[in-house]
């Protein structure tokens, strides 16, 4: 039985990525289903961040970057059939460190919509309230939207970044260890936001925190030194993985 909601949104096939002569990803193939949260776990230097940067083409300006294989979004090759800015609008990313622009809270979120032509004040206000509510930040900042975003705490900044990404209405959201610098309470808020966002978005969560993947993701992929070792339902990865290396990693025996 083919479930309509679980159809493949993003398909990666035979992906190899190099920086100069250094091979960082080898023969990666997997698919991401619509509206799922795919967790990606693995020790440092396993190529997780490189994968995300390849998916939204942030590597394009890196002269040392080269790749082979294909990545398709809704059947369209993102490297051959799409302009990078068109792709990135559909494929938002949250970076490991919160990265507010040196603007007010309001202007940070309005930045994306303004780029894409929304100038109407009412429409912008609506977007700002909606996205801040979705990222659980609205109640904390609604009275001081003109405040410089850099004055917010780290956790608030990261939720602001999520709101800012939501404001351009992407189809997929990539998270690159979004909670690595956050305290447990902020982390919980980010995770809660992610869980609620599955209704509208497909999400890929790269994390160093295996427990986080276990908590939020529907399926989990385990990467090791540039290879995809295993991808399966999160529950299976954490209880009965097929590969011994996965078992060792999730049970904390190495990495």
């Amino acid at each position: 039985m083919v479930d309509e909601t679980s159809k493949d949104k993003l398909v990666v096939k035979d992906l190899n990525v190099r920086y100069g002569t250094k091979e960082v990803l080898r023969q990666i193939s997997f698919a991401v289903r619509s509206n799922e949260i795919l967790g990606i776990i693995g020790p440092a230097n396993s190529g997780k961040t490189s994968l995300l940067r390849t998916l939204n083409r942030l590597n394009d300006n890196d002269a040392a970057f080269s790749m082979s294989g294909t990545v398709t979004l809704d059947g369209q090759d993102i490297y051959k059939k799409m302009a990078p800015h068109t792709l990135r609008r559909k494929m938002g990313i949250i970076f490991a460190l919160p990265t507010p622009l040196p603007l007010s809270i309001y202007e940070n979120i309005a930045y994306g919509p303004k780029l894409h032509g929304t100038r109407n004040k009412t429409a912008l206000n609506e977007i700002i309230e909606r996205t801040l509510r979705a990222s659980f930040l609205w109640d904390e900042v609604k009275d001081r939207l003109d405040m410089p975003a850099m004055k917010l705490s780290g956790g608030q900044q990261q939720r602001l970044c999520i709101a800012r990404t939501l404001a351009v209405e992407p189809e997929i959201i990539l998270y690159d260890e979004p909670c690595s610098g956050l305290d447990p309470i902020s982390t919980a808020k980010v995770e809660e936001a992610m869980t609620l966002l599955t209704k509208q978005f497909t999400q890929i969560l790269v994390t160093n925190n295996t427990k986080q993947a276990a908590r939020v993701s529907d399926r989990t992929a385990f990467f090791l030194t540039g290879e995809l070792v295993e991808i399966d339902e999160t529950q299976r990865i954490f209880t009965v993985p097929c590969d011994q290396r996965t078992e060792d990693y999730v049970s904390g025996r190495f990495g």
Partner: protein
Amino acid sequence: MKLDARLTEKVVFFLLLLATLVIVVPVFLIAGLIVKNGFAALSWEFLTQSPRLGMRAGGIFPAIVGTMYLVFGTAVFALPAGIFAAVYLCEYAKESRLTRIIDVAIVNLAGVPSVVYGLFGLGLFVVFLKFGTSILSGSLTLAIMSLPVIVTASREALNSVPQSFREVSLALGATRWQTISRVVLPNALPGIITGAILAISRAAGETAPILFTVAAFYLPRLPQTLFDQCMALPYHLYVISTQVPNLKPHIQYGTTLVLILMILIMNLTAVFIRAHFRKKKQW
């Protein structure tokens, strides 16, 4: 042993202080001498009248105006070219043999003696392009002389904008140019402007580049078009110091004082802009 160390410390301290004084003392001597002798010459008439009696009386108004024209002309030509070149080099060009050659060229351009720029301007603008000895030729020559400094300062300002700002903007679906015009340039602009003002204020005080390209010994009326010659403070100073006998020295000092004040005002503007934005800067 312990005493030796203490003695060494004192000697080193003294030598370092001496070196610092050697740098600072001439600055105060020059400034003091010029202000002391030139202040008397400053008057409304001196600032607003043309020279009379073969430069021996009257004022230096045409030279002030001429220097302002040249500063403005230099800025008009040098700013866009310098900033755009820096944007290209920082934001678009990938590291290659070509960019390395350009880097070397810019460094070397900054080391070219100013008289060589003057001769180059004479050859290219005055003679070859037939602009004649004119404000246009002079401004272009000064602009080329200022370019290396403007490009270098602009590149530093652009490089100081965190890479993460660019990635955030790109990740939200901005094109490269949108990213540059909305995020990178606004954050780099204070640094760019500061560097540019310093470069142009240096050009304002140069004599050699304008010697063959624009400067006039004496003009009975102010320049009317870009193709007219003009008087300029540094050249006027050179002329009255070397070509005019029996000149009262306070006119020379006064001219020097005006030139230095104009440059000082520009530099202070640059310092103010930098301080103002550093306070506002959040990253």
